[in-house]
C-alpha cells in the first residue's frame, strides 16, 4: 500500500475515501439508533447483539464466499488473538446494548467515541515498540477523559 503511486495524493481518491469513511460513520451511528429502539422495546441487549451478529455472520459469508473457499489456514497464535477479540466484542455488544436500555442514545453514543482511546492503551501493551506516548497523544486522551467525565456527571 505504501508504494501505490495514486495512493493518498490524488484528490479524487482522497475525496472518495472521505465519502466512504463518512458513510461508515453514518452506518455505525444508524446501527446504534436501531439497537436503542429495540432494547427500549423490552428486548434484552444481549439478545439483540446475538441476532445482529448471526445475521452479520451470514452476510459476511455471503459477501466473502469466494475468499473463504477451500480451507482457510488459522494457526494457534491467530486463533488465540481471535478468541480474545471475540471475547472483547461480545462483552462490548452485550454491555453497550444493555446500557442503551437504561440511558438515552445521545448519552451512550459519545461514550462509545472513546473506543480509539482504549485501542491506543491496548496497543501500547500489545504492540510494544510500535507506538509511543507523545504529549499530543496525552492531550487527546485527556480531552476524551474530560468529555466522558462531563457526560457521566451530567447524564
Amino acid at each position, binding site marked *: 500500500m505504501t508504494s501505490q503511486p495514486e495512493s*493518498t495524493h490524488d484528490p479524487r481518491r482522497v475525496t*472518495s*475515501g*472521505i*465519502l*466512504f*469513511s463518512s458513510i*461508515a*460513520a453514518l452506518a*455505525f*451511528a*444508524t446501527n446504534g*439508533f436501531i*439497537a436503542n*429502539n*429495540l432494547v427500549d422495546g423490552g*428486548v*434484552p441487549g*444481549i*439478545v*439483540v447483539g*446475538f441476532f*445482529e*451478529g*448471526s*445475521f*452479520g*455472520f451470514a452476510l*459476511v459469508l455471503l*459477501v466473502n464466499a469466494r*475468499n473463504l473457499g477451500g480451507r*482457510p489456514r488459522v*494457526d494457534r*497464535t*491467530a486463533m488465540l488473538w*481471535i478468541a480474545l*477479540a*471475540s*471475547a*472483547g*466484542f*461480545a462483552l*462490548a455488544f452485550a454491555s453497550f446494548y444493555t446500557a442503551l436500555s437504561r440511558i438515552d442514545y445521545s*448519552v451512550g*453514543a*459519545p461514550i462509545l*467515541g*472513546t473506543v480509539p*482511546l*482504549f485501542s491506543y*492503551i*491496548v496497543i501500547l501493551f500489545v*504492540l510494544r515498540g*510500535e507506538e509511543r506516548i507523545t504529549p499530543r*497523544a496525552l492531550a*487527546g486522551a485527556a480531552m*476524551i477523559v*474530560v468529555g466522558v467525565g*462531563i*457526560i457521566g456527571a451530567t447524564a
Partner: protein
Amino acid sequence: MGWGAGDVFARKAMFNASATTVLASMIALTVLALGIAGVLIEGPAAFSNLGLRFFGLVCLMGLLTWVLGNLFNFHGMQRAGVVIAAPILGAAPLPAIVIAVTLGGERPNPLVLIGAASIVLGVTVLLTDRNRVLR
C-alpha cells in the same frame, strides 16, 4: 473498552491469518459467546416470540455494522489514509446525536453536547498524531 481491545487483538490475529478469515471466525465466536451468555442470563425464552419487525431490524443492523460499516471503513482508510479517515470515524458520535435528536426525539443536556465535542476533538488529536508511530 471491549471494542477498543477487540480491534487490537483482531489486528494481531491478522498477522497470522487473512483478514476475511479473522473477521468470519471472530463474528462466529462472538455470536457463540453472546448466545451462551444470553441463555444463561436471560433464559432461552428471551430468544423466542420476537416478531418479524425485530428480525428485519437486526438483519439491517448486521448489514450496517458488519458489512457496510466495515467495508466502507476499510476503503475509506485505503483511499484517504488513516490520518484523514480515522477522525471521521471517531466523529461518529456526532451523527449519532443528530439521529437521536431528529428521529428519536431525544433532547440531550447541553453539557452532554460539550462532552461529546470534547471526546471527538480528543479522538481527532490522538489519531492524527503521526509522531506516536515509531515504525
